């Protein structure tokens, strides 16, 4: 897990505007808390050495 990576409130709020999410305060606060907690998980592959993975195969699941 990339523990150093964080989502700050300002970035979150600007993204919610772009995404046109419900701007009602209590819902946004709950969503921020949830996303802030998960955000390092989203970046889990950052820092992994993925050179040996052929990019074209990324979205093709093996059938062997």
């Amino acid at each position, binding site marked *: 897990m990339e523990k150093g990576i964080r989502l700050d409130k300002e970035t979150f709020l600007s993204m919610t505007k772009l*995404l046109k999410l419900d701007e009602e305060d209590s819902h946004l606060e709950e969503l921020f808390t949830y996303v802030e907690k998960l955000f390092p998980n989203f970046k889990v592959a950052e820092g992994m050495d993925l050179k040996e993975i052929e990019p074209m195969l990324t*979205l093709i699941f093996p059938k062997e």
Partner: protein
Amino acid sequence: MDSKDFCYFSAGELSRLIRKREISPVEVVKAHLVRVEALEPALNSFITLLPEQATQEARVAEHEIQSGQYRGPLHGIPVGLKDLFYVKGVPNTSGSKIFDHFIPDYDSTLALKLREAGAILLGKLNLHQFAYGPTGENPDYGNMHNPWNLERIAGGSSGGSASATASDQCTFAMGTDTGGSIRIPSALCGLVGLKPTYGRLSRYGMTVLSWSQDHAGPMTRTVEDCALVMNAVAAYDPRDPSSANKSIPDFTQSLAENIKGLRVGVPREFFEDPIDSEVESYVHSAIERLGKLGATIHEISWPMYHESKAISSTVQMAEATAYHSQLMKQHSAELDPKVRLRLEAGFFISAVDYLQAQRARRLFYQKSYDLFKKVDLLAGPTVPITACNIGMGEVHVGNTLLGVIPALTQYTRPYNLNGFPAITVPCGFSKNGLPVGFQVAGKPFDEAMVLRAAFAYEQATEWHQRRPPIPK
């Protein structure tokens, strides 16, 4: 024989009686409908019941069998389908009132296969909304309840499939599994649940959650039943782009083989995760039992195991949000608030995050595949706890407080990410009477080996014979 007893037989047992014409599918279906009526108020396993259709289908089955047209071991056997498998002419809610009036005009491949095999559809089963959650809680259709303790979760997302099968309301059910949704409720309700290899069973006509990790599979009371269902439904399906054109074995054949000499790997990483001490003890005993049955046990290390769970959940969240994005624009206020939160969180995953997670997934697949050069199977826990109370956001796992979602999915997600086949079988009961699951996994398309080990374990123990403390 009391007709009530028909509900407690496995598909294997029922089919032997039906084939010999000692009992009729009409009697079997009638007994199940009576039981459903009695238990539904407490368990809430079904969203749609089909008593007239089931009775009519049972009459047809009876006539076919009497006239010598026996279709096979599922002929006349009552089944429930998770309410996300399309059945022509029957409502398909996917666990949301938004789709209360959606009636598909075609059959999912699995519904069709089961009908061709002669199984009788009793109804469509309750689920976590859009299959997006592992607890089996649903504000639209009501929470599913665990037959072993009605205050506890049935697990999810295939919670109705688990509670109905464990409480003998249907002989078996079909579920789906994106992060553990067959294996988690099966483990928490004391059932056998198989997530086959990605590509083994068709997903045509099935509501999508995360297309690259969604699997369909059987939930049964015995390993033999799992094999019987696999024989009926496994097939290449050109209508499903993920379907693999692989040879299909007779899944019941491997059950007769013993497990002497099989190499069972136990990743040490499983026990670096938080786990309840009672669950851990039962799982170690189950592994020892495989050893006593002739397998050799090897402690191994599974590279990327710890990272695999975050990779899997990132892929799942991005795909689920992409799939449901239109729905969210039009119906966000009507969604289960917890499901809505998860769907909205998916918007914060960038395209780069998703693609990097998929690349990391490929690496995890290779590292998992390499393990099978040294072992034939992997064994460990299915869920680190027994069923928790309904409504809990966090749970104690040993001494660690975890969110209920990461806790329930910690041992199941890795097999959704690599797509390898994995089964859960009951391996014990906690002091307060709740089932514990034991997970066995194999290499891709080797469900036969997984079933063989699970069957050997099941036959050497008596856990699968215990019944929930609900009225007979």
